[in-house]
């Protein structure tokens, strides 16, 4: 179905490197009697340094697409290539390792380990990676400063506001120096001031450090900030607009 059937895929006429390449991606659920095509033939390239929002109504396939992009879910067919790695070829244990090294995650909520302080949460992935202490500490302090939480290093999540918690989550996602950050409705539980603040920080990190951000969102404020807006409906891309 789908009334808007045209796709506006931009030609690659600039020098930026493609880091994500999605080809003919399908995801079909057979849970009930009716087959559900959550993702129904998506082709998409994401380049280094993008600040991209994936939008669409509930059930449009945003979350499914993001899960597959993050290696949390396997496609029914098609493939996802991140740099030189074909995600479909990785075993589940390799996938965990791949996520740890290459992808930063920011979720809607429950991003942080409640028993660890802000600093320890940011350090956690670097611990999993087995980075030396000096490096961990330096990077953590740098990131917490970048997200405006200097001085709150030793606070546990329960002592931080929702916006502050999401900023710690962003710092945590960046700690492992990922190729890109996937943020699934990161502002869904935030008030407008915190949303503004969080978006500014992410935009700044995008500009300064060339961090690639991919959001899924309902939030018009996020859409307004994004440099590229991909709209999904019924598992298909119905529009893809670059602002700049």
């Amino acid at each position, binding site marked *: 179905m789908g009334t808007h059937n045209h796709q506006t895929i931009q030609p690659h006429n600039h020098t930026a490197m493609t880091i994500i390449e999605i080809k003919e991606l399908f995801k079909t659920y057979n849970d009930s009697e009716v087959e559900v095509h959550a993702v129904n033939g998506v082709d998409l390239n994401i380049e280094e340094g993008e600040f991209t929002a994936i939008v669409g109504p509930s059930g449009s396939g945003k979350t499914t697409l993001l*899960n597959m992009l993050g290696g949390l879910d396997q496609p029914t067919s098609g493939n996802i290539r991140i740099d030189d790695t074909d995600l479909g070829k990785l075993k589940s244990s390799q996938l965990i390792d791949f996520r740890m090294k290459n992808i930063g*995650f920011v979720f809607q909520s429950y991003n942080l380990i409640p028993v660890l302080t802000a600093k320890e949460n940011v350090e*956690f992935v670097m611990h*999993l990676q087995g980075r030396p202490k000096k490096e961990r500490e330096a990077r953590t302090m740098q990131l917490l400063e970048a997200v405006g939480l200097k001085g709150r290093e030793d606070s546990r999540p329960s002592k931080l506001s929702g916006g502050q918690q999401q900023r710690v989550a962003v710092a945590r996602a960046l700690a492992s120096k990922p190729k890109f950050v996937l943020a699934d409705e990161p502002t869904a539980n935030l008030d407008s001031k915190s949303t503004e603040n969080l978006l500014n920080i992410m935009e700044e990190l995008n500009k300064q450090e060339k961090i690639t951000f991919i959001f899924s969102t309902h939030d018009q404020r996020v859409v307004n900030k994004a440099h590229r807006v991909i709209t999904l409906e019924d598992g298909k891309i119905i529009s893809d607009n670059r602002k700049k």
Partner: protein
Amino acid sequence: MHYTLNSNDMIPSVAWRNIWRNPLRSGIIITAITIGMFAGVFSATFMKGWMNQRLEAGIETETSHIQIHNPEYRKNYDIRQIIPKGFDLAEQLSENPTINGVSPRITIQSMVASAETGTGVKIMGIIPEKEKQVTSLSEYVTEGDYFESISRNPIVIGKKLSEKLKIKLKSKVVITLQDADGHLTGGAFRVCGIFDTANSMYEETNVFVRYQDLARLSMLSEGVAHEIIIHLHDQNDLNSTTLALREQHSGLEVLNWKELTPELGYLNEIGNLYTYIFVIIILLSLGFGIVNTMLMVVMERVKEIGMLMAIGMGKLRVFLMLMFETILLTLTGGTIGIMLGLGASLALQQNGINLSNWAQGLEDFGYSSIVYPVVEVQMVVVIVILVILTGILASLYPARKALKYNPADAIRTE
């Protein structure tokens, strides 16, 4: 995927802090483990003390370490089955450096009667000074004395027997027995001392007279013995000395206390077994409580576990984190309980635990009514290992359950 724990790993630290996220719930299960382990350890030391006391009483006052008999004697306790040169042998044995004391005895199954009634007893003719070196019975004489106050035919009997025969100190009793020639004979003895041990049965069935009195009565010649009782300096020499004596005196029957009273020999093992079974039952029931607690933990943290897996925490690490949490929970309760149990045992080691309300029944079986707990390192180590094992086993099911989650689904669970 392999995983090694290094010193700055966060997993144990996270696990420990996780325990205290719900202090009430963790507190309840820790308290349960504490109480269980206190009970386990305390009953273990109590049991150990009790068994040791029984063992010591059995050896020191009754059998001593090693006994030598004519090989035929123990078959039907025939008065004629003697060791002909018993005194010489005893003398010779006392030269042995591992041997502390040697006492030759004449032992005859006989009847003892008071004016009121009579009963069957084992009558032992002893040389008091030598007997003192092999058994501690003289120390248990609570009324009268040990062959001192009465010069003619003195007899030392147990308290229980004195009650049965309704006799007192200085009362006269008549011993009836078959002498070495097969004639029935008898003699009058006067009660010189009454001993009171923890073993009523022993008190009731054993009486002591002087060697020369019994030898004269039973027409046995001086110097013979039915049994030679040997007490060692060190219990550790028991097996080697038994074997050596058996080799040197192949014509005689050499038995140590473990062989003479196998029920005493097994007492230690039975006591340990009982303790371990008790502790295992406690831990088993606690284990189910721990599993339940950890299942609640896993259900409660579905989203968090999903998030941890998404950001790159492998299944093995999630599994280990939950396992650490379970083990630390179990060990916390276990350590406190074991400490309290040891503390209580050590505190009561001096004065003992008085069970006199039940003592009558217990003493019939040879168990003392005041129990002094004994702490044995080996047993504590085994209990600690059992506690850790319980923690590991109890963690398997909940931790495995956590691994079944798909991170993408788990993090969106409502």
